[in-house]
């Protein structure tokens, strides 16, 4: 790595840390998170030593960097049209965890091509409420996650889009024995645009804190600007890959990279 390359790479990681500090400051200022420490700790990781993929894993020996937001609590607004209807939602908070891992670029030109260098982007969210059954409070939990499936070329019993959204999962273990009346198979795994830390926070705010999110959009210009960069780094290439794969099915019937994003994209 040349000095100029290293400088630009460090700058890229510094910018990711600054984004995290900025989103933490906004959440603090707006009282949307009781403790943004998990984001501060993640920001501190952005410039930590590079890590190397261990033996037996995909891309063994390749270097990567990343950060992890562990159990960030976000204050939620009351949700409407919930099931069971008896669920008591008042003053609930959700718990968001995000893991971002990016391979080290091979040359200076690759810096910032986060989508291409992406190793893992995992987002996990759950929140607890309760309802009363025969006068006794019973716990209820909502949980979803957005996983990266790196082994997109291996066969599995159901489609595994590279980035997929799935309701349920391990976070339901805590209440598994109490579940009644709802059955949750592992499918569907919905293909989904990847969410990094900023986009994951935005996703949660947009879906679970709609009124506050609208105010942020209207009254906090820095919030909008903060979202722009990760959207451009992740979503632009994601949707471009999909559009090009579908447009070019006549020449690439297998769908190319688009098929790894949505395995249903193929013509032969």
């Amino acid at each position, binding site marked *: 790595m040349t000095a100029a390359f290293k400088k630009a790479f460090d700058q890229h990681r510094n910018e990711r840390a600054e984004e995290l500090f900025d989103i933490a400051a906004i959440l603090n200022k707006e*009282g949307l998170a*009781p403790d943004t*420490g998990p984001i*501060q700790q993640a920001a*501190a*990781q952005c410039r930590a030593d590079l890590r190397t993929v261990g033996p037996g894993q995909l891309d063994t020996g390749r270097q990567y960097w990343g950060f*992890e937001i*562990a*159990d960030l609590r976000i204050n939620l607004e009351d949700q409407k049209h919930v099931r069971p209807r008896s669920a008591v939602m008042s*003053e609930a908070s959700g718990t968001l965890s995000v893991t971002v891992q990016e391979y080290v670029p091979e040359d200076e030109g690759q810096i910032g091509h986060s989508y291409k260098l992406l190793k893992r982007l995992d987002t996990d969210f759950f929140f607890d409420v309760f309802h009363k059954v025969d006068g006794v409070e019973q716990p209820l939990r909502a949980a979803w996650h957005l996983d990266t499936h790196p082994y997109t070329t291996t066969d599995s019993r159901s489609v595994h889009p590279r980035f997929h959204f799935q309701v349920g999962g391990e976070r339901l273990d805590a209440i598994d024995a109490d579940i009644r009346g709802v059955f949750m198979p592992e499918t569907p795994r919905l293909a989904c645009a990847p969410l990094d830390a900023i986009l994951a926070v935005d996703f949660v705010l947009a879906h679970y804190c709609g009124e506050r999110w609208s105010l942020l959009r209207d009254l906090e210009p820095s919030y909008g600007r903060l979202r722009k960069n990760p959207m451009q780094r992740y979503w632009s290439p994601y949707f471009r890959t999909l559009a090009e794969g579908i447009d070019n099915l006549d020449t690439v019937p297998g769908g190319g990279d688009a098929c790894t994003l949505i395995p249903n994209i193929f013509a032969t």
Partner: protein
Amino acid sequence: MIKTYLLIDDEARSDASTEPYVEAIAEASQGSLKVESYLPTSIEEVLEFIAKAKPDGLLLDVAFTNALIEHRAPLPYDGIALAQQIRTLQTRGSRHGAASLPEFPLVRFSKADVIREYVYGDTTSDDLFDERIDKAAIIDQAEAVAKQLFSLAGDYPAISAYAANDKSDEALARLLGCEEGFLSRIDARALLGLRRADAPAHVLSRYITGPLLGRSGPLIDETLLAIRLGVDRGRSEDWPALLAALKSAAYGGVFAQGYERWWMALVIDWWSGQIDSERVLYRHGAVERIEAIRQKTGLTRLTPLPEDPDSPGTKFWHLCFKSMRPVDPAFGFPLMPEWGQETWHDVDYLCLEEAKRDSRNNRLAPAERARLAKLRRGEA
């Protein structure tokens, strides 16, 4: 090099009153600090005396009620008024080159009952002092106090030099004892107080001893370091050895001798570089943290923090604001920021037991109160 403090105290004439403090500081500092007592008279005479004595720092009592002037009348000013006048003269001196008083640390040095009478609840004078010490602490924590006083006096010239020159990244990194590149790893908001163009040395010094070193955030103290590593210090003979292994994460900037701190970002680096590159520190419980440290460092005499029903969980990360128990944030109760607490500071927490005991604490947000109420309903 010996540093000299001037103790301005209304009991200075009667040696029996001030001598125990003077001796305790000198003894605890192993001769590196010398304290001279001075009985205040008129404010002009006091200032003239300070200018001539050229101390490395001042210890100021707040009440001057026992110092009398002509006709046994009390002094028309107190230690806080004197402190304000000294700060004004220091600022004027640094601005106009008149140097009527050079920059040096001011330490409030009073008994707790005097503070209750003069200051209680009024924070307006806090910023005048680099440190505020209860006289009783000199007896109970003499060594720690002596270290703080020595580091304040010893490092003030470095802050004065920083204040007088261009506050470049290079100068700031030198002040904080870190590499220039490390500055970009700290939330830029945390450094704003040290980048203020017009701030005199004592304002910068206060920023360091207050927001930067006085509250956990980018820097943490030994107690919190032990909690985050999962170590029960009192039952871990290898704790000093572990601290030595963590030397790369230690804060080495101004006042480091008196305020031992560690950069949290470098602690996380140390963990991922030396202990476990796969799983970040805060994902492990205390037992797992200790096991991983034992395996990689060979330090076997480390005991993990025990589980505690009053502060449940195992992934301890904070210190309960009241009970001083380790807190796992998944089970603790975060408090809303208080005045002066910045977005880059760690949030204060109550452990479960304290939250139950103090459920009407007005820093508990409605969501936290609801969580607490739900827990109580579950227990009923």
